[in-house]
């Protein structure tokens, strides 16, 4: 049991080369899926251990921190690790059929190996307690993400991947510069140690430079509004299973690191008191959910519409962070989970449509309900969750966020959130209307019916949907977990 933190990262890391050795498309898929489920189980066990507010510090190779590298697991990141590994497991089950259409059979094993490496990187970023280690895991996940995106069937996927590579590398390099300055200012890389030494650093200017570089670099990786350029094409052209996985996890992990940095390493007195960060974050957040929701209404492609909506939702999370209060952070954390689940479900249902219809052009979805009822029902329920209708997870997080904003007296921001929710109703409602009611206009749609997708695609989608509904109806469970995470983040390192 003591070795669980190491196992969490080692499992997918060791299995990735094994998948390459296996080579057989079906077996490599099975191996990758089993590995992912095991990793999910490990993170579940870890979450159980830290639920009561205790902390696991795992010294790698027996070298105690701050000399050695350690994994640092508490309430705040165990949940994020569970989200990442859980989504990865479900989407991997789903990917089996979905990938057949986009990736050549001879390359399946490379796809699954890349997936496992991406999972390694994301989990590693979340649970590590060493600043430089964050960079290493970030690059592991990024490099495998570039590869996964390039698997898209369209040649535009290659360009999207290249663009993400350029922007992602610049972001990662900024993070590297930031870590370098932090090391120069404090002489340590261990996050707990950094939090202790930063206030008495001899060179506050180096700390300031480190803070700025880290903020900008992480914001690029998290696709915060003005820096979201790479996300749209990447989500649009990547294989849909990859999009579902990334939309639920990759940006969320960067946002978690951002929170860790603002509240635990630098402390909110520094980040928000001295640096006035809320004057940077809140305008970015508001611009993000207003502009991106508006643009999403005018999209004619379902995948692109959801990509815009993803950037908008990151804005909500950022608004919660910018409050820097217990309630605001709770809202940010709970929305991270809820949006991860909702958006993964949405992209999975879009993938089902892509599997049968062959494209995701919105006008070609006329009366899809009569031909693919299960897929459409999943899309509708998840879509309502995105809008924030009561009884869905979206309602829980939006309600928390708005009450957190009102608590601080920031009512204009709360009004903006309502406005953008109306816009979300518009873009989701338009698609639902098309799917349910509109008559086909002849030539664009083939008259013979589409069949429903294979059961292996429906099951993970509905499991995720059921989880979403469960957490929507019994919202107090995720809320209490998020409250614990928020107080851990705000409390800094013990």
């Amino acid at each position, binding site marked *: 049991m003591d070795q669980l933190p190491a196992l969490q990262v080692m499992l997918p890391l060791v299995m990735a080369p094994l998948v390459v050795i296996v080579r057989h498309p079906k077996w490599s898929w099975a191996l990758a899926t089993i590995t992912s489920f095991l990793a999910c189980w490990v993170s579940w066990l870890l979450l159980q251990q830290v639920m009561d507010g205790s902390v696991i510090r795992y010294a790698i190779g027996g070298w105690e921190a701050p000399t050695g590298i350690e994994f640092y697991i508490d309430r705040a990141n165990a949940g994020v690790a569970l989200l990442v590994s859980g989504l990865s497991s479900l989407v991997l089950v789903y990917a089996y059929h979905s990938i057949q259409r986009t990736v050549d059979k001879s390359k399946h094993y490379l796809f699954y190996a890349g997936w496992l490496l991406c999972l390694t990187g994301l989990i590693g970023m979340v649970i590590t307690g060493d600043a430089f280690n964050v*960079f*290493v895991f970030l690059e592991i996940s990024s490099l495998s993400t570039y*590869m996964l995106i390039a698997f898209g069937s369209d040649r535009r996927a*290659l*360009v999207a991947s290249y663009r993400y590579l*350029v922007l992602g590398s*610049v972001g990662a390099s900024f993070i590297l510069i930031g870590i*370098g300055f932090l090391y*120069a200012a404090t002489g340590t890389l261990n996050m707990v140690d950094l939090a202790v030494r930063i206030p008495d650093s001899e060179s506050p200017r180096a700390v300031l430079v480190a803070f700025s570089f880290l903020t900008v670099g992480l914001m690029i990786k998290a696709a915060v509004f003005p820096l979201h350029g790479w996300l749209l094409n990447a989500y649009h052209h990547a294989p849909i299973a990859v999009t579902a996985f990334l939309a639920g996890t990759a940006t969320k992990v960067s946002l978690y690191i951002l929170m860790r940095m603002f509240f635990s390493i630098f402390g909110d007195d520094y980040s928000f008191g001295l640096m006035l960060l809320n004057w940077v974050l809140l305008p970015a957040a508001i611009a993000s959910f207003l502009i991106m929701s508006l643009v999403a209404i005018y999209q004619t492609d379902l995948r692109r519409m959801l990509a815009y909506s993803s950037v908008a939702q990151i804005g909500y999370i950022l608004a919660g962070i910018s409050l820097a209060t217990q309630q605001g952070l709770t809202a940010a954390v709970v929305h991270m989970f809820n949006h991860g689940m909702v958006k993964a479900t949405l992209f999975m249902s879009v993938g089902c449509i892509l599997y049968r219809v062959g494209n995701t052009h919105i006008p070609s979805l006329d009366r899809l309900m009569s031909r693919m009822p299960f897929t459409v029902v999943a899309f509708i329920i998840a879509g309502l969750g995105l809008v924030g209708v009561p009884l869905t997870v979206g309602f829980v997080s939006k309600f928390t966020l708005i009450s957190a904003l009102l608590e601080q007296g920031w009512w204009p921001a709360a009004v903006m959130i309502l406005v953008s929710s109306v816009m979300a109703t518009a873009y989701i409602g338009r698609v639902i209307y098309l799917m349910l009611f509109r008559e086909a206009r002849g030539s664009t749609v083939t008259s013979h019916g589409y069949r429903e997708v294979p059961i292996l695609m429906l099951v993970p989608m509905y499991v995720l949907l059921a989880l979403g509904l469960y957490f929507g109806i019994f919202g107090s469970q995720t809320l209490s977990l998020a409250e614990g995470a928020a107080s851990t983040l705000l409390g800094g390192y013990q």
Partner: protein
Amino acid sequence: MDVIGLYNYWIVIVLMMAGLYILIARYNLIKKMIGLSVFQTSIFYLYITIGKVEGGTAPILVDDPHVVYSNPLPHVLILTAIVVGVATTAVALALTVRIYEAYGTIEEDEIRAANAEEQDI
């Protein structure tokens, strides 16, 4: 403020800005990659500069208590970062080859034009 004494940092800044400029201003995908490499190399240089100790020698333990060593940790860190940089460049070049096969060009503006045409159809 000792401007001349900090010449290492000036080199870092010049290299970094030059790399970033190439990355943004050039349309050719290979040239972009050269820019990114210069940018990353400047960071390696920054780290090595941080590890320098006045009068320090290479950090190999010798039997003399008066010897001053330079800090080996940044060197180790940057060794990792160099590997990451090589991997990034390799992935980018592989992507460039695939893009060339798919589009017949590696100029970003021509690729954009080809994509725009595709969207009209």
